[in-house]
C-alpha cells in the first residue's frame, strides 16, 4: 500500500473524542471520559505508525482531498491533507508524544474537578495540531495554527478562577495575534502573486525564481512575514513573552503544547516554506539572527529562575531558538531533527517536573525542594536522563541534534556557532542547576500537610512527605526517557537528513561531500560542544552541591546585572511601558473617553436631549383647547391673506 486512504482519520479521531467528551463528559463517569480521551488519540497514533510503516518515498508526497472548500475564480483552497517525509515525522512526534502525555494526564489530573473539560481541550488541541501538520495548503494550515492557539488559550487558562492563569491565557492569545497578523499578510501576498495557497502550486511557481541576491524582494517580504508568524507561535524574540507566563496551565499542557508540539509549529512552518526561504537570503539571515539571539537570551534568563517550570519554559524558548538558527543557515532537516529530539526530552522534562510538583504537593519553587532523589527515584532517574539529553551529553538524543545544528551553524558563520556553543554551556549549567537544586542536598520544603495547601487541586492526598507518582504517570516518563536516550540514533550517519532529502532537496548531499573533506573539523567542534556541556555540569555541581553558599555571593557581587537577569531583563516591564501602557492609556483617554463617550455617546444623547427640549417647548402649543386651535388657524389664514394682498396676487 502506498497511499493510505485512512490518512484523514488521524486528525478527525481526536476531534471526535473532543466532541464526545465535550458534550457528554460532564455527566459521564471518569472512567468513560478517560476511555474516550485515550482511545481516540491512541487510534490516531496507531494509524500514524501504520502509515509510517507502509510509507514508501516513491509514493510521497501525496495529497488527500477531503472536500472542496473555497472555489472563487482562479483561486481555490480545499480541505486537503498532504503527506511527505516532513509531515510524517511531525505526525509521529505529535501523535506519539501527545498520546503519552494523554496517558500521563490521567494520573496528573485525576482529582481535578474539570477532568472531562481538560481532556476535551487536549483532544481538541490534537485535532488542530494534526490539521496544521497535514495541511496541504497554507489556509488549512492557518486553521490548525489558529486552532492550536485557541486550545493553548483554553488550557493555559484552565484554572481560570486563578487571576494569573486567566491573564496568562489572554497574554498568550494576544501576543500570538501579533504574529498571526504577519502570517496573514504573507498569505495575502502569496495569493496576490501566485494565485494559490497550495504548497505544491506555490512552490512550483517559486522554484524557477532566482535567489534574491540583489536585495529584498517579494520572497524576502513573504519570508520575513512568515517568520513574524513563527515568532509569535514559537515564542521567539520579540514575541516570546507569553511562553513563560503560559506555565500557569497544568503541567501536562506545558509539556504537550508549550514544549513538544505547538511551539514547534513555527519551525515546521518555516521548514515547510523552505522553498521560499532558500530564495530569500535576507529572510534567512533574519531567521538565523532571531534564532541565535533568542537561544542565548532565553538561556541566560533560565539561569536565575527559581520556579521549576519557568526554567523549563526559558529553556524551551532557547531550544526553539536553536531550531530557528538551524533553519536560518539553511539546515532545515537539522532543525526538524532537533524539533523531534526536543519533543522527547523537553516533554519528558516537563512531565518529570509535573511529577516533582505532584510529589511535593503543588510546590513549584525549587528553593523549597531538594533531596528528592530518595523520595521519588523514578522521577529522578528519568529527569536525569532528560537533563543529560538536553545538555548534549553523548550518546543521548540531544547530543546528536544539537551537534548537527552547531556543525551546520559553523558552516553558516562562526558567530552562530560561537553563540550556539555558549548557549549550550548555559543550557547545561541551568539544567543541572535545576537537577541539583531539586534532587540533591536536603529537603528544604515544609512537610506537605495535605488538604488545601496545594495550589493545583491535587493536594488532597493527605501525604506527609514527598511521594512517588502513580504508575500511569511513570510509564510515559520511562517511555520518553528511552526515546531521549535512543531517539538521536536516527541521525546517525545523517540517516535522518537523508530521509528528509526529498523534501529539503539535495543541499544535504553537497554538504555531506564537504563533510567528508572537513570531517576533522566536525569532530573538533563536537568535542568542544561536549566539553562545554560537561563544564556546565561541573560548574552547576560546584555551585549547587559542593559549595551551595557560593551562588548567593556571586549574585551579590554581580549586583545590578544579576537583578536584570533575575527580572528577565525587564522585558515585560518595558513592553508594559512602551506598548501596553500607551495602548491602554490611548484607548482610555482618546478612544473611550474621547471618541466613544464624547463623540458617539454625546451626539446620540444630545440628539435625544435636544428633541426632548424642543418638544417640551412645542408641547405648550397643543393645549387641547379647541378655540385656541381655531385662533391659530384664523391668525394663520389672516397672515396668508395679508401676504397675498401685499404681494398683489392675481393682479
Amino acid at each position, binding site marked *: 500500500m502506498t497511499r493510505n486512504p485512512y490518512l484523514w482519520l488521524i486528525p478527525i479521531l481526536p476531534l471526535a473524542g473532543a466532541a464526545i467528551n465535550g458534550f457528554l463528559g460532564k455527566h459521564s463517569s471518569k472512567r468513560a471520559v478517560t476511555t474516550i480521551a485515550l482511545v481516540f488519540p491512541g487510534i490516531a497514533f496507531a494509524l500514524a505508525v501504520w502509515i509510517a510503516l507502509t510509507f514508501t518515498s516513491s509514493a510521497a508526497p501525496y495529497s488527500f482531498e477531503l472536500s472542496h472548500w473555497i472555489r472563487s475564480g482562479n483561486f481555490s483552497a480545499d480541505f486537503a491533507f498532504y503527506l511527505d517525509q516532513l509531515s510524517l515525522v511531525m505526525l509521529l512526534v505529535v501523535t506519539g508524544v501527545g498520546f503519552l502525555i494523554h496517558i500521563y494526564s490521567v494520573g496528573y489530573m485525576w482529582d481535578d474537578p474539570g477532568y472531562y473539560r481538560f481532556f476535551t481541550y487536549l483532544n481538541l488541541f490534537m485535532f488542530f495540531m494534526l490539521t496544521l501538520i497535514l495541511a496541504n495548503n497554507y489556509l488549512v494550515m492557518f486553521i490548525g495554527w489558529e486552532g492550536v492557539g485557541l486550545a493553548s488559550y483554553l488550557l493555559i487558562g484552565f484554572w481560570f478562577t486563578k487571576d494569573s492563569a486567566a491573564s496568562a491565557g489572554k497574554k498568550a492569545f494576544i501576543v500570538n495575534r501579533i504574529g498571526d497578523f504577519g502570517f496573514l499578510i504573507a498569505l495575502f501576498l502569496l495569493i496576490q502573486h501566485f494565485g494559490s495557497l497550495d504548497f505544491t502550486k506555490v512552490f512550483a511557481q517559486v522554484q524557477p525564481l532566482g535567489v534574491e541576491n540583489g536585495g529584498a524582494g517579494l520572497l524576502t517580504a513573504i519570508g520575513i512575514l512568515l517568520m513574524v508568524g513563527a515568532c509569535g507561535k514559537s515564542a521567539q524574540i520579540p514575541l516570546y513573552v507569553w511562553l513563560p507566563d503560559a506555565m500557569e496551565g497544568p503541567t501536562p499542557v506545558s509539556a504537550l503544547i508549550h514544549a513538544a508540539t505547538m511551539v514547534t509549529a513555527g519551525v515546521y512552518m518555516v521548514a515547510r516554506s523552505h522553498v521560499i526561504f532558500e530564495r530569500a537570503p535576507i529572510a534567512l539571515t533574519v531567521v538565523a539572527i532571531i534564532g541565535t539571539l533568542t537561544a542565548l537570551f532565553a538561556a541566560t534568563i533560565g539561569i536565575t529562575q527559581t520556579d521549576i517550570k519557568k526554567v523549563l519554559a526559558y529553556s524551551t524558548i532557547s531550544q526553539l531558538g536553536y531550531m530557528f538558527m538551524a533553519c536560518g543557515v539553511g539546515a532545515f532537516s537539522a532543525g526538524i531533527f532537533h524539533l523531534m529530539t526536543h519533543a522527547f526530552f523537553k516533554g519528558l522534562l516537563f512531565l518529570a517536573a509535573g511529577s516533582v510538583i505532584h510529589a511535593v504537593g503543588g510546590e513549584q519553587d525549587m528553593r523549597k525542594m531538594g533531596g528528592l532523589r530518595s523520595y521519588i527515584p523514578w522521577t529522578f532517574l528519568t529527569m536525569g536522563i532528560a537533563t543529560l539529553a538536553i545538555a548534549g551529553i553523548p550518546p543521548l538524543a540531544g547530543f546528536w541534534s544539537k551537534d548537527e545544528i552547531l556543525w551546520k551553524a559553523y558552516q553558516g558563520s562562526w558567530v552562530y556557532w560561537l553563540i550556539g556553543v555558549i548557549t549550550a554551556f548555559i543550557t547545561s549549567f541551568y539544567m543541572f542547576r535545576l537537577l541539583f537544586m531539586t534532587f540533591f542536598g536536603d529537603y528544604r520544603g515544609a512537610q506537605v500537610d495535605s488538604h488545601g495547601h496545594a495550589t493545583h487541586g491535587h493536594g488532597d492526598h493527605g501525604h506527609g512527605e514527598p511521594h512517588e507518582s502513580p504508575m500511569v504517570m511513570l510509564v510515559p516518563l520511562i517511555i520518553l526517557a528511552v526515546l531521549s536516550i535512543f531517539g538521536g540514533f536516527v541521525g546517525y550517519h545523517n540517516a535522518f537528513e537523508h530521509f528528509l532529502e526529498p523534501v529539503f532537496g539535495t543541499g544535504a548531499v553537497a554538504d555531506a561531500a564537504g563533510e567528508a573533506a572537513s570531517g576533522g573539523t566536525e569532530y573538533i567542534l563536537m568535542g568542544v560542544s561536549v566539553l562545554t556541556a560537561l563544564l556546565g555540569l561541573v560548574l552547576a555541581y560546584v555551585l549547587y552541591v559542593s559549595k551551595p553558599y557560593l551562588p548567593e555571593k556571586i549574585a551579590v557581587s554581580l549586583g545590578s546585572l544579576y537583578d536584570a537577569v533575575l527580572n528577565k531583563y525587564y522585558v515585560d516591564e518595558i513592553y508594559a511601558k512602551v506598548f501596553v501602557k500607551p495602548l491602554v492609556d490611548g484607548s482610555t483617554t482618546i478612544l473611550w473617553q474621547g471618541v466613544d463617550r464624547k463623540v458617539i455617546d454625546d451626539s446620540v444623547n444630545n440628539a435625544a436631549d435636544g428633541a426632548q427640549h424642543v418638544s417640551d417647548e412645542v408641547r405648550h402649543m397643543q393645549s*387641547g383647547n379647541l378655540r385656541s386651535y*381655531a385662533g391659530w388657524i384664523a391668525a394663520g389664514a389672516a397672515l396668508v391673506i395679508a401676504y397675498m394682498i401685499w404681494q398683489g396676487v392675481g393682479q
Partner: protein
Amino acid sequence: MVPLSYYLVLSGILFACGVTGFLIKRNIITIFMSIELMLNGVNLSFVAFAAHWHVLAGQIFVFFVMVVAAAEATVGLAIIIAVYRTRETLNVDKVNLLKL
C-alpha cells in the same frame, strides 16, 4: 344691479361672524352653527362671483359645499348627541379626554 363688492363685503362679514362665534363660544352647538355661517359666507362669495363672471362653475361648487356641509352636520350632530349622552355637557372645554 347690486355691485359685486357689496356681496363680497357681506360674505366677509358673515365669515368673520362665523370665525368670531367659533372662537368665543363654548357651547358646541353654537360652534357648529358658526361653522355653517362661515361656509355660507363662502358660498355667497361663490355665487356672487359666478353671477359676475357668468361662469356656472361657482354655482355648482356651492352645491358641493352644501352637500358636504349637510353630511358634516349629520355626522357632527350624531357625535354631539353621543358626547352629550356620556359627558352630560356641551361645553367643549370639558370634553378634553385626549388632552395630556
